[in-house]
């Protein structure tokens, strides 16, 4: 453990991944503790139907968290992902329900909208030098308003688009294994997480993502066009948020324009619990997915145990603080 922490501030991906591995292990242990604890507490917890509803509840937050992990590793933050998700869902609704386009068009438009808005946010951060917190805070409000304006504050339903709800609610696995009808939304999370983990671990983009978070200046001085890479990362994160937009609207059979605010914080919480540091340079996708699972296991478990909602919030908050505290201890040890 101490030998990994010694290399904490190294700029290589290997050191970054090793640092994350410890936290990942811790997060995974936390997840196991929660699952075992809740299973002992309530016989209803570990039933197939409940496991499936936990995974279903993780899918949207998980995809959002995977997207924002990319940005957080660069040392940035994106507060607009919650309302961007909604805006992408709304655009999908506009294309499918209002214009009557076929299903794939809605999915493409949602993802393209996410990528476009991500590009704008990235440009504001990289070129206009607006701090990411402020740029995306502004974007968060702009997008919230835009969703309400486009829809006239009313939800857009997908009743006319056959198969739209199946994107999230249908179950390809259930056709093969009827006993375990895992919703497609969970598969989408799995695929998105795998692809992003591959990007981070195996591609130049991944290496630059970590490098930007560790020492942007050094990367720039070595002749890399950091602005371009950064914008690219925000755009990809935006596209992933677009996928979350499709998932949530498919789940709700509607684009709910007022929804979205607050979802960014849940996603960021999952990222942090999963061991990605907000100061950048370190993080893993597997950790983020585990973080998202911890969040939904916690919410579901407390609910199944009939803990009052006020206390559910308190416990969730304490877990987030504990996770970040663990991270701080580790970093202090490294300094």
């Amino acid at each position, binding site marked *: 453990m101490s030998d990994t922490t010694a290399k904490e501030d190294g700029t290589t991906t290997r050191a970054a991944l090793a640092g994350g591995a410890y936290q990942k292990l*811790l997060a995974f*242990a*936390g997840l196991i*503790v*929660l699952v075992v*604890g*809740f299973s*002992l*507490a*309530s*016989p*209803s*917890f570990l*039933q197939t*139907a*409940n496991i499936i*509803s936990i995974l*279903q*509840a993780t899918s*949207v937050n998980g995809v959002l968290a995977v997207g924002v992990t990319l940005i957080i590793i660069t040392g940035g933050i994106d507060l607009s992902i919650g309302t961007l998700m909604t805006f992408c869902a709304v655009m999908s609704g506009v294309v499918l329900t209002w214009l009557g386009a076929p299903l794939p068009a809605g999915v493409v438009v949602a993802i393209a909208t996410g990528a476009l808005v991500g590009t704008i946010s990235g440009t504001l951060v990289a070129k206009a030098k607006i701090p990411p917190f402020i740029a995306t805070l502004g974007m968060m409000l702009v997008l919230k308003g835009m969703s309400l304006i486009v829809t006239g*504050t*009313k*939800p857009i*339903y997908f*009743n006319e688009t056959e198969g739209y709800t199946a994107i999230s*609610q249908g179950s390809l696995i259930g056709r093969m294994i009827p006993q375990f009808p895992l919703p497609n939304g969970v598969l989408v999370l799995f695929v998105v997480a795998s692809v992003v983990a591959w990007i981070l671990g195996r591609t130049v983009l991944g290496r630059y993502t970590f490098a930007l978070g560790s020492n942007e200046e050094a990367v720039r001085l070595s002749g890399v066009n950091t602005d371009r890479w950064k914008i690219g990362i925000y755009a990809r994160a935006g596209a992933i948020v677009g996928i979350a937009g499709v998932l*949530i609207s498919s*789940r*709700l*059979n*509607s684009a*709910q324009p*007022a*929804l*979205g*605010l*607050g979802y960014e914080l849940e996603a960021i919480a999952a990222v942090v619990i999963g061991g990605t540091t907000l100061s950048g340079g370190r993080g893993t996708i597997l950790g983020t997915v585990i973080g998202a699972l911890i969040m*939904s296991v916690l*919410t*579901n478990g407390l*609910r*199944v*145990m*009939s*803990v*009052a*909602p*006020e206390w559910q919030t308190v416990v969730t908050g*304490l*877990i987030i603080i*504990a996770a970040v*505290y*663990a991270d701080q*201890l580790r970093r202090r040890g490294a300094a």
Partner: protein
Amino acid sequence: MFTRRHMMGAAAALSLLAGAGAAFAQDVYVPLISKGFQHQFWQAVKKGADKAGQELGVRVTFDGPDNETQVDKQIDMLSAALANKPAAIGIAALDSQALIPQLKQAQDAGIPVIAFDSGVESDIPVTTAATENKAAAALAADKLGEMIGGEGKVAVIAHSQATQTGIDRRDGFVDEMKAKFPNIEIVAIEFGDGDHLKSTEITKALLAANPDIKGIFGTNEGSAIGVLNGVREMGSKTVVVGFDSGKAQKDAIRSGEMAGAVTQNPVGIGYETVKAAVAATKGETLPKTIDTGFYWYDKTNIDDPQIAAVLYD
């Protein structure tokens, strides 16, 4: 290392909570999923539900999302509640259509569903415990009609033309006025989304165009406050009648600026929901709707115990 110890602490705390949860495990369990839990209105609903739970010897839980936009959170809550194999379930749907898969799941499992506060566009719920909004708005029309002497111009500032409560309150008021006070003319029906400011602007524009309006009805808390502010800013003597409560509205009624308002009975909504749920588990037939009641309140009766119990700040 520190953190591992902390994890253990968390695990210990959890197992304590677990003991508390398991103690209830055998009895009849009725979860209520509402539209929220932190507003005073919902707390009052919870109070009624808890009271019925105690009287009938069933375990009642009350859960709801942080705000009324979180449709997906409500679905997750319903799923978690269903996992617990409840005897019956109460739901105040944020969006009926989004909840259909879970409601079907309940139906397939033979768990009776009771809708409360507002209806669900589905035949799955065995009954709906809610305020009879048309009748409640008709009561507001009766009172306003009497106060202005049965003649002159009146207006309605409604909170929504999209939700059933908005439509019912508007129609209830308008129909009653037409039936009972033929000499009263309804000059305008406007929609302010229950937004204070929007309703204020509409009221001011209305009063500018029709200075002789004798009374205005605001169909929910936000609308009523908006109307009140508009009347105040225009220095008009128009009689204002509101709906629901809230601190601003109660203060205005005490000071006489607002003539009175119709209040729903949130405690009754919670009570009747649990009562209906228990009846449904016993296979009793229930009416399609259960009127949970409403009251007129003004300066004279605002402090009566029966009224004060259903008002909130």
